[in-house]
């Protein structure tokens, strides 16, 4: 059984990208973008998470489709949890 071995250079590139994105997200937080601040912060965090999942966690290279299905389903369940809760609390006055 031979596994797909990812070049060390790619891992280091991803690490570098994650470091740069960390600096960017911390720096952008000090600039007033209005409501965009939160959106930018979450977009950068999601980009970082996708890099980790695809490369470090090998989801990009797996031949097992079930693994990909589980990953996508997990994110979808989280979306249901957050989105439906938000629909509820967003459409009523709290307290």
């Amino acid at each position: 059984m031979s596994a797909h071995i990812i070049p060390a250079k790619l891992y280091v590139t991803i690490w570098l990208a994650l470091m740069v994105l960390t600096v960017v997200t911390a720096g952008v937080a000090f600039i007033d973008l209005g409501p965009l601040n939160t959106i930018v912060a979450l977009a950068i965090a999601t980009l970082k998470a996708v890099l980790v999942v695809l490369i470090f966690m090998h989801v990009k290279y797996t031949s097992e489709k079930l693994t990909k299905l589980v990953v996508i389903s997990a994110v979808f369940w989280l979306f249901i949890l957050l989105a439906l809760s938000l629909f509820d609390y967003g459409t009523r006055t709290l307290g």
Partner: protein
Amino acid sequence: MSDSSVAVEHHEPDLQHHFADMGQQKDAASLGMWLFLATEIMFFGGMFCAYLIYRRAYYNEFAAGSRSINIWLGAINTVVLICSSLTVAMGVRAAQMGKRKLLVILLILTLILGLAFLGIKGIEWHDKYKEHHIPGPSFDASDISREYPQLHIDQSHEQIFFSLYFAMTGLHALHMIIGIGLFLYLTHFSWKGRYGPEYYTPVEMGGLYWHFVDIVWIYLFPLLYLIDRKPLG
């Protein structure tokens, strides 16, 4: 039982009898691990959901509370965890290539980075303890109210922010402690030469767990430390 599976069993000492081959065994382990991580996403998801609801309701208290946390400690810890994810990824690679010494070195580096994360977290929590920002009878955020009078801080709502801060960073730290336990186990058996190109599934599964905990932190950092850092107008 077919003859072939018995024959394979003799050739592959790490193959359990209910799997056809090593590839299938590894795919099954990987799928099981991802299913576990899916439940972990929902576990943390409940907290993120509570955070979302209360942040919408008490935004000023969340913004002021976030400003009171040391952004440097949070940023350094983000860097520490990203570095540890690299050492883990390189460690799995070393196992795949059968480089035992390199694997052990990378696992020990990961352990050091994990402990550094917890140490920095401890400093941060100790600061909050000294400032009376730990929810409970001695909670006192009047320093935050005085610093940001324009935000009209409600003390009990501020306490909700810090409850979520401690619950989320605490649950994350608990996962780090469990991760360090897992990696001590992996380091021990890597040292003994248990893992190599034919069988490195435990290293890869431990790696998946470690990366997952890193991803949780990737979200916790902006959501707790960077809510509102822009100059107050």
